[in-house]
C-alpha cells in the first residue's frame, strides 16, 4: 500500500474508533482519543467562514471533555436518544508545521429518540489534526464544523 493510502487508512480506523465510542455510548473512553491538552470544538459553518470564534461546545483538554461526559451523566436533563455516525471522504489537507497532519472527513449524524423518531441531526465536516504518539494516532484538534447553524432542541452528546 502506498504511504499516503496507508496513512489515510490509519486515520479512517481512528475515526471509526471515535464514532464507535460515541455511538456505543462509551463516552468515558472519548477523551482518551485526544492529546491531554487536545482541542475539541463544535462550530457552525457560518461562524467558521466569518472568522467568528464562538463555539456551540468548546473543550480545551481532556479535563473539560471528562466534565462534559460527567455533566451528561449526572447534571443535564434530556430525553434518551442515540446517535449513528456515518463518515466518508477522509483526505489529507496538509502536514502541520508543529507536527502531525490535518485531515478532513465528512460526517452525518442521525439521531434516534427513545420514541423511535429519527432525524438527520447534524451534517458537516471534521477538521482534524492528528499526531502520532507511541505508534498511535491521537487527536490534537478536532473541530466539528456543522453545515447548519440551527440545532434541533439541544446538543448534549458530542458529535
Amino acid at each position, binding site marked *: 500500500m502506498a504511504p499516503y493510502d496507508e496513512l489515510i487508512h490509519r486515520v479512517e480506523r481512528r475515526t471509526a474508533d471515535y464514532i464507535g465510542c460515541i455511538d456505543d455510548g462509551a463516552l468515558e473512553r472519548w477523551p482518551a482519543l485526544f492529546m491531554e491538552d487536545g482541542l475539541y470544538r463544535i462550530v457552525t459553518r457560518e461562524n467558521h467562514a466569518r472568522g*467568528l470564534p*464562538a463555539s456551540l461546545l468548546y473543550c480545551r483538554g481532556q479535563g473539560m471533555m471528562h466534565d462534559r461526559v460527567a455533566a451528561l451523566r*449526572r447534571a443535564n436533563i*434530556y430525553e434518551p436518544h442515540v446517535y449513528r455516525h456515518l463518515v466518508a471522504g477522509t483526505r489529507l489537507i496538509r502536514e502541520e508545521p508543529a507536527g502531525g497532519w490535518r485531515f478532513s472527513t465528512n460526517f452525518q449524524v442521525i439521531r434516534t429518540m427513545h420514541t423511535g423518531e429519527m432525524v438527520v441531526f447534524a451534517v458537516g465536516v471534521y477538521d482534524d489534526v492528528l499526531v502520532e504518539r507511541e505508534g498511535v494516532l491521537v487527536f490534537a484538534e478536532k473541530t466539528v464544523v456543522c453545515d447548519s*447553524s*440551527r440545532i434541533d432542541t439541544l446538543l448534549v452528546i458530542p458529535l
Partner: protein
Amino acid sequence: MSKTTTTELTFHWPALGVSRVPYQVFTDPALYACEQARIFRGDVWHWVGLEVETPAPGDFTTQWIGDTPVIMIRDTQGVMKVFVNRCAHRGAMLCVDQRGQTKQFTCVYHNWSFDLDGRLRGVAFRHGVRNQGGLPPDFDFAAHGLQRLRVEVLHGLVFATFSAHVVPLADWFGPRMTAHIARIFQRPIRLLGSYSQFMHNNWKLYMENVKDTYHASILHLFLTTFGLNRLSMEGGLETSPCGGHHLSWSKRTAEQMAGTEYTQGTLRAMQQDFRLADPRVVQTWPEFPDGVTNAIQGIFPNFVVQQIQNSLAVRLMVPRGVDACELHWVLFGYADDTPEQTEMRLLQSNLVGPAGLVSMEDGMIGSWIQRTIAQDPDQTAVLEMGGRAIPSHGSRVSEASVRGFWQAYRTVMDV
C-alpha cells in the same frame, strides 16, 4: 390594540387573572394568527438586529418580526432602515441571504429595483419592446415602494415597529429597562458568533421560561452546584409597569445558603460531591462595578439580553407556527476585550446555547408542556409563586415576571 385583524376569537381569560394561564394560548391557531396582527404587527417594538452587524452604508441583515421577513439596512447616510423583505411588484422575497452588502434591492423575478430608501427606481421593460407592452404611462412609481417600518436605535440595538402609534422606544422600555440596556451596551461590542435552537413548542412557553426566576436553580444543576446563580444569593426581580419587561439579577459573592433547601439534600440540582476536572469553564472575572454577576432581561414580546457571568448575548425568539419556534442567539464581548478576556467568554459560552451546560434544558422543557396540553385548552397553568400580582421585589422565588408577561399580553391582545 391593532385593528388590523379580522380574526374572531373564541377565548376568555380565566376570572383569576394572570395567576392562571389557559393552555389554549399555546395551542390555538386563531390566537396565533391574532398575535401576528396585534403583537408582531401591532403597537409593539421589535428587535431586528445590532448596529455593529451593518457598519457600512449598504450593509444589510435579514430577520423576522413574527412571521414577517424584514431587511435591516444602513442607508447611504448611515441611517438604519427596516423594510418588509418583499418586492412591491409580485411579492417575491428580495434578500434571501442572511447578510450582505448592496447598493439597491433588485428582485430576481422581474428585475424591479428599489433604492436604500425603499423607493421604486427601475422596472424591467417599463416601456415595453418597440413601444408594445410595458407599464401604463400613468403608473405611479411613488406608490409602489417597499413597505417601510418605523425604526429606533438604542445603544446599538435596532428596533422596528409596524405601528405609527406606539410610544417612542425609550418610553416603551421605561427608565429602569433602558438603564440596564445602557449598562450592557456601555461601549462598542465585538460579535463572537451566532446560532439558533429550534424548539417544538409555542414561542410563549420559552418566554415564560426566560422570565421564570423560580426554575433556574432547580432545573439547571450547573447554576446551582457551581454557585453561579442560586435563589439564596442577593438578587432582585424587577418588572416594568406594563408587566412585559423584566430584569432579574443576582450577585455571586453575596449569598446566605444556610437554612435553605439548597443545604437539605432535597434538590436534584444541588450535588455537593460534583467536582469539575477543569473549572476554567466557570472561571469568571468581576466585570461590572455594581457587583451583579447574573442578569437576565426580557423585553416584550420576544427579546432577551443575557449576562451569565461574563457570557454576554442577546436572544430573539421567532415563532414558527403555533407549536414550534426558533431561538436565535448572538454572542458578543467588547471591542476592547483583551485576548484573555475573549478566551474566558468563549469558555463560558459552554454554559449557554443549544449545547449550554446551563441552558440546554430550556430547549426541551417547553416541548414537555406542549405535548400534554393539546386536549385540554380550558385547563390552566398555576402562577402563584410570589403572590398573584406583578410587583418588583427582592425575592426571585417568584413567578411575578411571568405574570407580568401575561398582563402585557392580555393588554396588547385585548383578551
